[in-house]
């Protein structure tokens, strides 16, 4: 007992206690302050995520949007006067003599080619990645982690180094051609480097793990008793694959395709090195506007058009695939 308590006068039996109304409001105030505290701590806990998203996601995007509606300064950078020139010049070119705007599909062609390359890369990764992931998922549990490790080993070295290594393998005097000539299979080197094929090969190699890993995660969870049930109900091996295994690993297929398609569409290093600058993709094109092209607003506009295209493609892709799932499930 403290001295104050000892000194406090005894209220006595007749002393009026706090009225019910005051206790109630006190309780309300206490619970209200507790709610406030909870709200504050919720915000504090989510602050790191919000700050990260704002600084690294939303702010740069706003800057790009603003830049795309400005004029280009002659030596890079922007002039702060509003303009839609960048978007116009994406589709039209000013005739040098008549100063008339003429429709020019150059940029669209690069976009289309990038799209085809990205789709091709995605399909190649899916067709070769699925058997790989299936093989990994059907190993004994102890072996599986080793296979995952092997798949992730390429990530340990730089993409640029790996792409240059591919270049050394496929160039005219490279390893592949030397071996083929040495084995007398061919007498003239096959030109692979600086072709479209080289770009797709490089993209396929770079992004294969992004396909294999989500597929593996999906297939590893697959209940193989369902596969047995399929065999039991007269489904041959191909039918079990297409009617049971593939529909059930759809989440992995969707995730893998997105993880390969989106970065493949905007790839920069691979097409630059393996395409030799002759076969441009969107990534090179945009980089060029910010570099030697000195047209920042055009670069910003091109980046935003790419982003919109990806969003539209995603929308249709997701709707088509989930629609199929729904149809499959009735």
């Amino acid at each position, binding site marked *: 007992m403290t001295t104050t308590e000892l000194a406090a006068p005894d209220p006595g039996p007749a002393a009026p206690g706090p009225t019910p109304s005051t206790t109630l409001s006190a309780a309300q105030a206490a619970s209200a302050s507790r709610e406030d505290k909870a709200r504050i701590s919720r915000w504090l806990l989510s602050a790191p995520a919000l700050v990260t998203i704002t600084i690294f996601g939303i702010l740069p995007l706003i800057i790009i949007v603003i830049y795309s509606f400005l004029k280009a300064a002659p030596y890079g950078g922007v002039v702060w006067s509003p303009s839609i020139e960048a978007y116009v010049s994406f589709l039209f070119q000013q005739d040098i003599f008549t100063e008339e705007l003429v429709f020019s599909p150059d940029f669209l062609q690069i976009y289309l080619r990038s799209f085809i390359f990205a789709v091709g890369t995605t399909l190649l990764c899916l067709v070769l990645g699925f058997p790989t992931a299936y093989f990994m998922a059907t190993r004994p549990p102890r072996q599986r982690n080793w296979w995952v490790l092997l798949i992730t080993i390429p990530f340990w070295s730089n993409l640029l180094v790996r792409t240059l290594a591919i270049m050394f393998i496929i160039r005219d005097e490279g390893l592949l051609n030397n071996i083929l000539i040495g084995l007398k299979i061919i007498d003239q080197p096959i030109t692979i480097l600086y072709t479209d094929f080289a770009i797709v090969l490089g993209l396929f190699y770079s992004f294969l793990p992004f396909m294999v890993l989500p597929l593996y995660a999906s297939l590893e969870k697959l209940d193989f*008793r*369902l596969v*047995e*049930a399929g065999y*039991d*109900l007269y489904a041959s091996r191909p039918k079990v694959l297409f009617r049971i295994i593939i529909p059930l690993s759809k989440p992995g297929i969707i995730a893998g395709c997105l993880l390969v398609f989106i970065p493949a569409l905007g790839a920069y290093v691979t097409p630059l090195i393996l395409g030799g600058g002759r076969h441009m993709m969107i990534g090179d094109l945009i980089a060029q506007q910010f570099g030697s092209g000195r047209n920042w607003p055009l670069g910003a506009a091109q980046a935003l058009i790419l982003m919109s295209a990806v969003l539209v493609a995603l929308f249709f892709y997701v709707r088509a695939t989930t629609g199929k799932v729904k149809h499959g499930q*009735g």
Partner: protein
Amino acid sequence: MVELTGLPAVEAKNVTKTFGAGPDAVVALDNVSVTIQQNEFFTLLGPSGCGKTTLLRLIAGFELPTAGSILLEGQEVAHLPPFKRMVNTVFQSYALFPHLTVAENIGFGLKMLGRRRADRDAQIEKMLKLVKMEPMRNRKVHQLSGGQQQRVALARALAPHPKVLLLDEPLSALDLKLRKEMQIELKRLQHETGITFIFVTHDQEEALTMSDRIAVMSHGKILQIGTANEIYEHPVDRFVADFIGETNFIEAEVMQRIGNRGQIRLPSGIALARELDPIAPVGGKVTLAIRPERIDLVKPGADCQLAGKVENIVYFGTDTHFHIDLDTGGDVTVRVQNRRGFQEVLKQGDAVGLRIAPEAMQVLKD
């Protein structure tokens, strides 16, 4: 009881199945032979690890026998993959396809067999009706309860009208009441479809109530095949007697023998004439199996085969179990039906006589 045609539906001949190799090899089935007749409800009964599920998987085609052959209606099928055998399985986990509806699950086998859509739809409707799941036809599997999933699994396996239906402990995931319902349901389905059922279970009561014949298995071997009655009343050895229901074991001495008949003496000194296994020598011991409900408790006297003291009384509602310490050593359980309600005639420590009909004492092989 379903009328049996007597034609074999499934024959296993000297089937051995070994998993692994070298010193770690596990023998799951050890030279098993069994013939299952058409339209039969045949049960493989045994504790876990006895090989009953392995035998089922060999018949389904999920495993290849290490040795021996498996015949389906007289045709060797051991080398055929599961999708080429007119045999369907109801899996313990049901293994329903989660991406398909109830109707699509039921129609899957028919679709894979290449049946025309109209035929398929008609058969799906028939099956839905058979398992009373018509209102659920468009549901997804995860929207169904355990009992409903069980019905869909049954319908899916029955839809292609297989020659043999294999059921791998299909009722083990259900609660007691639902299990009892499904036991009756399964019997009804087997009767209505006329399909041979091979049922795997470790539940002896399930086996006794549902089966036309039962094979009791242990350690990869079939110990006894017979009707529920034969297996319960005439178990061949100690394992079967102990696994099926409760049993008292009493040792007796062989006094003399003529051919396969002889005289044995109970520990109490009472002599009995019995049919004997040829290997039991004079002076040797045999084990007698006696069911608890086949013993009468009476006043101790000369007409009793055994005598003892009441050690413990347990009331079970329908009957009362008396644990008796025998005067000659050992103990037995006696089950008395409470036909006139529970009557506290006997108390702990009372001396009692045990009267056992000679035919209730089964000589075991062991």
